[in-house]
């Protein structure tokens, strides 16, 4: 905690960037980040590139980043951890600084998804052995299963759950409409959400996040070095935790399909690392992995913010709305930014960073001290969960 400070951050506009290559997105995010950090590019001693989908993206290895930014002969690593890729890249850079392996490191996540020719995420192989037996369901299909299971376990009638899920999406659209970098900046009504075409039962169109192009990045260093560059208000990394499934949920009988085991484990570890005892009261803002409305809903419980079975009530009470007790997705979330996979984790950190520094424009919340980011890759039954906590230095 507080070993690593964020020197600068950048985020491209997210959206259907028909005019842009991945290279353009990387440069766009990086130029903002470099200016924010106030350093020369040559000061960066190591870099991590996160991108998740190979075949339609930038190609293998670290070369796409090194080449796009013309990083001169420094170590550049490429990481991939499904939808947690962005956080994974940041983790690499932060750990390098915390370990003293370098003074200044760059983490950049990028994904160019809108060159597939169709909506939704690209279809990929799951590995040659898995391909022999695993269903090839869509991402909404895998997360939709949370809803039936949650409804059955907590005896929340599907109608009520659908209304809470609709509120989740409605709130993010309200927030996204105020964010110039968001992909979707359109308000929708609860009725529109509830009556949208079905994608994967019970998830309708507005229960699903968009798919877009984008890049986001961070330059990290130690608080001492940041101070030496004249930075006054420091945002530091309080915790970065990642948890990967080992098959317990999908292959043994101990999991009931209503929550994300790894989110809970990553959150518990992150709170411990950051010294947070009561997240519902101590966190100022949250940016969670709202790939689908139901994911965000159960995540409120998995992050120990809502009591088990109580997320529906909190959501409907407006607790996570912009003016609520703990605003969630104040930037619009995946719902309005879309989900360029490798970039999303860093995009979330970017919003928390802006909020802590008071630079979030008309979205700015008051007295933001500590914010949380949450990333989730895979399916509820088999996933990689990442939780990051960022805040004012010393807070």
């Amino acid at each position: 905690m507080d070993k690593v400070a964020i020197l600068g951050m950048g985020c491209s506009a997210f959206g259907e960037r028909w005019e842009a290559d991945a290279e353009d997105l990387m440069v766009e995010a990086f130029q903002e980040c470099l200016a924010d950090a106030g350093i020369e590019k040559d000061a960066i001693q190591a870099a991590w590139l996160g991108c998740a989908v190979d075949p339609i993206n930038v190609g293998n290895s670290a070369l796409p980043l090194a080449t796009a930014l013309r990083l001169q002969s420094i170590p550049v690593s490429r990481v991939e951890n499904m939808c947690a890729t962005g956080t994974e890249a940041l983790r690499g850079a932060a750990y390098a600084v915390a370990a003293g392996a370098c003074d200044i490191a760059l983490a950049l996540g990028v994904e160019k998804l809108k060159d597939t020719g169709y909506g939704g995420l690209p279809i990929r192989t799951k590995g040659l052995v898995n391909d022999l037996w695993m269903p090839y369901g869509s991402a909404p299909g895998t997360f939709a299963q949370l809803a039936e299971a949650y409804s059955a376990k907590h005896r929340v009638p599907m109608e009520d759950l659908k209304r809470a899920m609709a509120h989740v999406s409605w709130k993010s659209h309200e927030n996204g409409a105020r964010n110039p970098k968001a992909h979707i900046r359109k308000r929708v009504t609860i009725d529109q959400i509830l009556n949208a075409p079905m994608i994967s039962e019970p998830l309708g169109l507005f229960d699903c996040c968009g798919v877009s192009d984008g890049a986001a990045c961070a330059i990290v260093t130690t608080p001492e070095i940041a101070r030496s560059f004249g930075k006054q208000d420091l945002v530091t990394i309080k915790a970065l935790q990642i948890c990967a499934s080992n098959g317990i949920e999908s292959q043994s009988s101990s999991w009931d399909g209503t929550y994300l085991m790894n989110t809970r484990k990553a959150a518990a570890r992150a709170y411990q690392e950051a010294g947070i005892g009561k997240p519902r009261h101590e966190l100022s803002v949250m940016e969670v992995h709202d790939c689908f409305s139901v994911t965000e809903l159960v995540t409120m419980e998995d992050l120990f913010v809502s009591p088990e079975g109580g997320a529906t009530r909190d959501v409907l009470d407006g607790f996570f709305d912009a003016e609520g007790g703990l605003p969630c997705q104040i930037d619009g979330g995946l719902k309005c930014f879309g989900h360029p996979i490798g970039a999303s984790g860093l995009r979330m950190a970017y919003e928390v960073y802006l909020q802590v520094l008071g630079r979030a424009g008309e979205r700015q919340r008051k007295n933001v001290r500590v914010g949380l980011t949450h990333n989730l890759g895979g399916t509820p039954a088999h996933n990689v969960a990442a939780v990051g906590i960022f805040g004012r230095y010393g807070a």
Partner: protein
Amino acid sequence: MGMADAVGIKAFGAYIPRMRLKRAAAATAHGWAFPALQGLAKGARAFTDWDEDSITMGVEAARDAFASRDRSQVDALFLASTTLPFIDRSNAGIASLALDLPQTLRTLDITGSLRAGTSAMLTALCTSKPRDTLVVAAEARKTKPASSQELRYGDAAAAVIVGSKDVIAVFRGAASLNADFVDHYRAEGQKHDYVWEERWARDEGYLKLVPATVRRLFADTGLAATEVDRLIVPVALPGVAEGVSRAIGVRAEALAPQLLDECGDAGAAYPILLLARELERARPGQKIVVVGVGNGCDALLFEATGHIGSCNPRRGVDRAIKRGVEIGDYLKFLALRDEIELDWGMRSEFTNKIALTTEYRHSREMLAFIGGRCTRTGTVQFPKSRVSVNPEVHAVDTQVDAPLADAPARVVSFTADWLSYYPNPPFYFGLVQFENGARVSMEFTDVDRSLLRIGAPVSMVFRLKELDRRRAYRHYFWKATPVASDQ
């Protein structure tokens, strides 16, 4: 030798796909051009889903026949069909793995004419001593839209276990006749049958070749026509079975009914399907003649024994008929049978190229659905792995076979996915929990939406997992089907 020790049929089973096209729907769709098809617009015909073929149907018929009986007595498997998915890859071999039969099994694909079913059964009856032979016949014939075959044919499979101990029907004799009578044919590379005038097939084919064969059977076995209790003449043309029956001289009430309104003419499988139906209701001592027609004729005589009531297939013919759901959507029928190319979008461009090396390493696990049971903790899982998935004890290399195909299981979670490309949307999939502890992420098929809910029982069915059209390859695996109650 007592009757019960003679060679004969020990068990039977059947499979009819769940979907049944209302013939009226097809006839109506073609009405603008072929109003005469209205004459065939009666009842419904069974048809395969995209993930079914002669192998999967045959496997299900064989599972029906095996029910809970010991499979180790079987040392040969004959698979008869004119619609085997592979020309050079043992179709019977795939079925034998799916049925988890011993690797030392003799396997044989029998094809080339619609007589393949009865000829396979006859061959088994002549060669099965002392061990049992599983004879499976399955057919899923493609039919050209607006052809009379489209309305007359149906897809189905049937199976008999032939052996020499505790038989339910003794084999009394057979006669065969070979004739290059080409009332229809399908050459290499042809998708559909080419069919000659039906009146000729009736007059010169059925009404002459069948009586000639059956009369020889009578002569060889000393049976009088009037002694026949059931005569099975599988034919879809109206009035022909009755004509044959009269020509032979059996009693009118002995003629076994067809299954045309419920299923349709299932080609090589049809005689055995009808035989299974008769065995399902036969009484001891009944004499049953079954005829198979295709470039000639086979006629076989069986006599039901005192064991006839002891054979209980898992489902049987009557229940296979009853599980049908009528489909009135003719375009769906065409799409599922590859008779029309719909625009499925770019998502359908993705094909999962199966690595044959990988598939072979896992062939028994996947085809027979064998998981692993940790000998230290008892944890059951699928697939097997070197390190156990048990949350506490990660024992290494402790797993023995844990068969899952017939294990009771329930739904943990599910969805109906409209986004994924799936040839018969929506794509149902979810988590399945086996009572033995294994949990598997599975596809669902033959879904009755009213039965699909959390905690609902499911049974396993053998299906196509992957149809790689580009490479004409088929990969098989198991899927879950919601069932009404624990069976």
